[in-house]
């Protein structure tokens, strides 16, 4: 089959969750199908400024077609529209305007995909972007939508209710995401499956790494160091824990800082590290902590389980909580008291913590190994192929 992926940004240097998810799925499906990527020249998801050169290029054996973004995001205008549509019921035109202001607004990309009648099935990433909405309206039953949705006011806009009923199939990231979208859009009739994504292959080079064993005991956080990821809350809780409970444990942080990291002897920031070093840090940590409240699927949680490490997550995120309960591979907290008690439990009950990590590993193997993900995509592709036979893109301008 010829598969076309539509995604807001694409590139090996883009670390965003949905974009990496898209690239990994595309690269794996490329082993069985002919895959092409349709994306923008943008690198920055806030401004959508054109940074990549437009045109065709090959990334890891896959043709990537880049189209320029016509209008960078006007933050003031975007926030004004967002304040209106998120706070009160607005006419559909205003919601459409929010989608356009949210971007990336690239009419050339839409023109480009319309011309590609040879593509059998379209796989569209992230429901909230202008490119996805346009492609979904064009290809409807010929498309598989990967929503990557989380609790977010945008999801409740009435315009999306209808959009979730359009695709031939939906590849959800988690049971919670599926239930959330079903409850909002009432789209149970649309074929859907909880698929998620596998992990990048581990690198086995001989590159030297820090001696993480010597840093024991440490708790690990991997990801963007941002308020949106709950890092400010994590820092507050951890510093309080050091002051009130015990200070012989470190918090090791890997990732790009967006907010300041507290200067404290127990908080160690390693910055952006190599894949191998990250894996070494995971292998030797006591557990991985994930304080984010909004996740549709946490890949870093899967990475911890791949290394048989237990996890401690923010229980206010339904997806993370659900993953921990289904896997029995981690604990979750909802306030500081629970955080402190769980940290003490995981630190002081090493053998139980090890067993929890092993349970997480089993869950990872059963649900997130690439063969499982590939089989699920194959099944969705077959069902979409059967249902869309004879269909042609409608309303093509």
């Amino acid at each position, binding site marked *: 089959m010829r598969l076309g992926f539509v995604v807001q940004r694409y590139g090996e240097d883009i670390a965003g969750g949905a974009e990496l998810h898209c690239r990994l799925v595309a690269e794996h499906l490329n082993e069985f199908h002919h895959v092409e990527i349709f994306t923008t020249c943008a690198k920055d998801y806030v401004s959508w400024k054109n940074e990549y050169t437009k045109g065709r290029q090959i990334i890891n054996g896959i043709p990537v077609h880049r189209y320029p973004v016509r209008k960078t995001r006007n933050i*003031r*205008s975007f926030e*004004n*529209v967002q*304040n*209106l549509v*998120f*706070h*009160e019921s607005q*006419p559909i035109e*205003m919601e459409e305007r929010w989608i356009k202001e949210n971007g990336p607004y690239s009419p050339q990309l839409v023109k480009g995909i319309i011309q590609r009648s040879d593509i059998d099935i379209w796989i569209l990433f992230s429901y909230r972007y202008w490119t996805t909405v346009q492609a979904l309206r064009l290809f409807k039953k010929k498309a598989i939508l990967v929503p990557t949705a989380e609790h977010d*006011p945008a999801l*409740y806009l009435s315009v999306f209710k209808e959009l979730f009923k359009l695709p031939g199939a939906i590849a959800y990231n988690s049971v919670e995401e599926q239930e959330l979208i079903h409850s909002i859009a009432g789209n149970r009739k649309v074929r859907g499956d909880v698929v998620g994504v596998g992990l990048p292959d581990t690198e086995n080079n001989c590159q030297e790494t820090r001696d993480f064993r010597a840093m024991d005991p440490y708790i690990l956080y991997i990801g963007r160091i941002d308020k949106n990821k709950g890092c400010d809350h994590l820092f507050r*809780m951890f510093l*309080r824990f050091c002051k009130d409970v015990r200070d012989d444990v470190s918090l090791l942080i890997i990732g790009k800082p967006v907010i300041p990291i507290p200067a404290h002897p127990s908080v160690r920031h390693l910055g952006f590290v190599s894949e191998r070093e990250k894996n070494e840090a995971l292998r030797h940590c006591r557990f991985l902590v994930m304080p984010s409240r909004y996740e549709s699927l946490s890949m870093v949680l899967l990475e911890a389980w791949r290394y048989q490490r237990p996890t401690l997550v923010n229980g206010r995120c339904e997806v993370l909580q659900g993953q*921990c*309960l289904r896997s*029995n*591979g*981690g*604990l*979750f907290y909802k*306030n*500081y*008291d*629970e955080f402190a*008690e*769980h940290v*003490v*439990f995981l630190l*002081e*009950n090493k053998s*139980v913590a090890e*067993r*929890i990590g092993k*349970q997480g590993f089993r869950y990872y193997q059963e649900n997130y190994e690439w063969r499982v993900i590939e089989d699920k995509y194959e099944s969705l592709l077959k069902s979409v192929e059967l249902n869309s036979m004879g269909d042609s893109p409608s309303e093509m301008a």
Partner: protein
Amino acid sequence: MADDWQDIEFGSEIDVSEIMEIIRERIAQKRKEGIYTDEAIAEITESRIMQFAEEAEIDSVLLEKLRSPDHSWNINPSYIIATHRSGVKAKVIILIKKLVRPFIRLYTDHIVGRQAQINQYFAHLIHNLVREITRHQIDNDALKAKLERLEREQEFLEQRLRTFESMTMPEDKSTDQN
């Protein structure tokens, strides 16, 4: 704490919800004794504020915004210029509105800005009041519990004293004579 868990047997499959349930019970026990952290008080305050807002039937999205640390819920002098009309007419109307806007804002910005500050101040004040009331109620409950415990202890000690007294006091001879 490690010792506390030694007595608990885990089967071949560890049920994490079981562990968390035990931990929550321990926390609840501590709270019964009036041991609350600032975080716990903040959490109770939040749930109370939520409850008040739900009683007032405020829009849930606005409620979420009201609880967020930024002040995006507040009134703002900037607004979007739009019209329900379409075509050339719409463009002309939007242009006129854009031309008029700076003059209107000359008079309204100051008032809206001031009102926004008052809103922010009241929101801050009310939030802190709810937190302080919560803290006092918790202190009050803890003191009540402590008082009850002291009363029980006092009663017990008095009873004990009476027993000792009855044991050590010499028998009243006059009653024997009678």
